[in-house]
């Protein structure tokens, strides 16, 4: 009912849509839908790793083989459409490629690409121009031969070499592919079906009598007429070969792996600037701390430009001025100092010194060891933490760390344990920025920093004690060298972190995002 309606509809469309009948005929004269499935499968395998060529080379094996196999499958589909005569070979190749892609490329496009290609290739392989018989012959029935009997019905398997016919048939139906035929010796007139009687379904193909063959003994060669069973036999042999080819290739594909190498273009240098007072958000001076000791900016919110990335390039040490600047007792050199990006560390340091008589030149670290043998990033990342709590804190002096653009002088601290709340790192490299936030709990850590600033607090009590801004050139006189401090804590800590070496890092609440290039002001 529905089917007949569809047929009516289809016939109606044929009249109205020009070219539709032509397309249908074109479609029916080739394995069209098999081609569609193979092309779709190839597209899926191709799309997963598809990217510009340099990226695919980075990704390696899976990307390159995915694209290659995808292209092969698409080509196979086009062959099914435009060169259908070669469908058998192309279908076998497409099947092998689809199987290989399972191993080499994302499980063959997530399985679905390989499966589509396999089914499509098989559809094309099975496509044939002649409508198939209602019941195809049992393919397994022709493997063993039956000795000739006196039967009038003669067994003539259609695709094996030695075939014998009964000895009383005159009219012999020849086997299809030119095998040796044991010709019958008796009088003619016997029709011999090409399928064995005991095998399975009776053959409905019309049996065609051959011209009379000489009724001699066995051993006659009969040339085959190009009829349907002949094609079937030839194809069957192709199928067995395809099976033999498919298995080893698919297994061999499992041995293939790849490693990607990533080498992006080199970096460039970045500009830098420094702060002139210690930006501690929300810090107010307790009454018991003298003004001249209080280095925090009076209004940190008005001092946002004071924390651009620190300079990574070494600067000459500042003149050892220890006398306080006359009249400047507010401890606020920030606003009066030139805030341009060209302000050097020495200017900052001398400003700090002018505000505090407690700064001194930083001593060198003794026995820096192998850390000077490694190279470090030339753009020092800015790190910060809301709260810092260190136990077993030791200041070890300064060390010159080698980078591509010269040595960076860094303060060296060690802590047996360091806890940092909301530790953030902003890398200073040109190009992408890493913005990482994490709560850290680190055992056995060495910190190498170009500068360190913040509000020192009374450990465990969280009472503000002293705002400091120290650099690798100038440190407070009270900061003891190589003395093990049981506890050291600070709020709003910022540092230029050249390097951290840590034994064990426990982190929680990690969030890391890489964002596009920031603009260096």
């Amino acid at each position, binding site marked *: 009912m529905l089917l007949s309606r569809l047929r009516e509809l289809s016939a109606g469309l044929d009249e109205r849509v020009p070219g539709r009948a032509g397309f249908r005929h074109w479609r*029916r004269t080739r394995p069209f839908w098999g081609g569609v499935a193979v092309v779709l499968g190839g597209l899926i395998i191709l799309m997963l790793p598809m990217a510009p060529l340099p990226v695919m080379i980075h990704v390696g094996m899976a990307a390159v083989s995915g694209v290659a196999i995808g292209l092969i499958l698409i080509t196979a589909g086009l062959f099914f459409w435009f060169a259908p005569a070669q469908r058998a070979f192309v279908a076998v190749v497409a099947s092998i490629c689809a199987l290989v892609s399972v191993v080499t490329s994302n499980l063959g496009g997530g399985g679905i690409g390989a499966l589509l290609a396999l089914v499509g*290739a098989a559809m094309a392989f099975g496509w044939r121009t002649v409508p198939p018989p209602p019941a195809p012959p049992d393919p397994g029935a022709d493997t063993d031969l039956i000795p000739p009997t006196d039967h009038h019905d003669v067994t003539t398997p259609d695709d094996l070499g030695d075939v014998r016919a009964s000895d009383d048939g005159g009219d012999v139906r020849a086997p299809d592919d030119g095998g040796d035929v044991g010709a019958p010796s008796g009088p003619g007139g016997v029709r011999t079906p090409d399928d064995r009687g005991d095998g399975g379904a009776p053959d409905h193909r019309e049996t065609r009598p051959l011209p009379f063959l000489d009724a001699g003994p066995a051993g006659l060669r009969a040339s085959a007429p190009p009829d349907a069973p002949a094609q079937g036999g030839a194809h069957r042999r192709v199928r067995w070969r395809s099976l033999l080819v498919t298995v080893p290739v698919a297994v061999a594909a499992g041995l293939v792996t790849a490693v990607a190498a990533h080498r992006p273009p080199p970096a460039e240098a970045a500009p830098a600037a420094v702060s002139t007072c210690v930006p501690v958000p929300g810090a107010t001076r307790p009454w018991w701390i003298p003004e001249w000791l209080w280095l925090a900016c009076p209004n940190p919110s008005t001092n946002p430009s004071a924390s651009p990335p620190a300079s990574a390039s070494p600067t000459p040490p500042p003149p050892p001025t220890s006398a306080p600047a006359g009249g400047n007792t507010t401890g606020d050199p920030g606003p009066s100092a030139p805030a341009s990006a060209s302000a050097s560390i020495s200017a900052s340091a001398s400003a700090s010194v002018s505000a505090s008589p407690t700064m001194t030149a930083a001593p060198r670290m003794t026995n820096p060891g192998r850390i000077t043998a490694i190279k470090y990033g030339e753009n020092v990342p800015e790190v910060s933490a809301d709260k810092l709590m260190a136990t077993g804190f030791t200041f070890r002096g300064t060390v010159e760390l080698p980078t591509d653009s010269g040595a960076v002088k860094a303060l060296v601290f060690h802590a047996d344990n360091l806890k940092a709340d909301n530790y953030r790192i902003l890398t200073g490299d040109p190009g992408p*920025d890493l913005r990482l936030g994490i709560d850290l709990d680190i055992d056995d850590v060495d910190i190498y920093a170009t500068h360190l600033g913040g509000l020192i607090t009374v450990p465990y009590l969280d009472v503000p004690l002293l705002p400091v801004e120290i650099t690798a050139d100038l440190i407070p006189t009270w900061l003891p060298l190589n003395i093990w401090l049981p506890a050291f804590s600070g709020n709003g800590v910022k540092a230029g972190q050249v390097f951290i070496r840590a034994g064990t890092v426990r982190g929680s609440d990690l969030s890391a995002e890489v964002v596009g290039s920031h603009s260096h002001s």
Partner: protein
Amino acid sequence: MRADEGRTSWGRACWLLLPSLAVLGGVTVGIAEGALAASFGVSGQQFKVKAASVEGTDIAAYLDTAQSVDGTHHPVMLAGVGQATLRDVCTSAVVAVPMVGKISLKVLGGRTEPITGTNVVADADALFGGDGVITDVEAGRDASTLDRVKGVSGPPGRFGVQAGTIRTADVESTAWSANGGTLQLAGDLEVSVTAGVHECF
């Protein structure tokens, strides 16, 4: 039907289809059992990875730029892990297939037995994690001097990180490309392809 028209004989198609499916089954079982190491490579589009736990030895990472199909550049952190073990992994990618539309590919695995991989390299642009422990950290090395993971070293002068071991829980990441040098999938592997957008998180 005209004389030169034809159709698919499924009986004949089975001669190719059945052995192919048999091999496909063998390969799939081999991969699922971890006997056969499959090669993965997704690139050019964003995909999401979620894992209940990640353990690894030899980690190296630096900042890089990834290029996607449309040629745009995306800032990423290129991270390599020498030996990785992941549990309860969900990976999802949304692929726009011509003529079909958006298809979500989701791979679930590592629930009964962990997935292990060697030389896993990924370009991630976001990473969120729960509690984790990292040992032997060196943060701030020049990216060109990274030596923990073969093939993972960046341009000179850049910020680089490497570490000895890592153990984290509840990792979520969005990435632009990933390549498991080899991945051993064990036991349960569930691949689903659905129309529309269905992601891990």
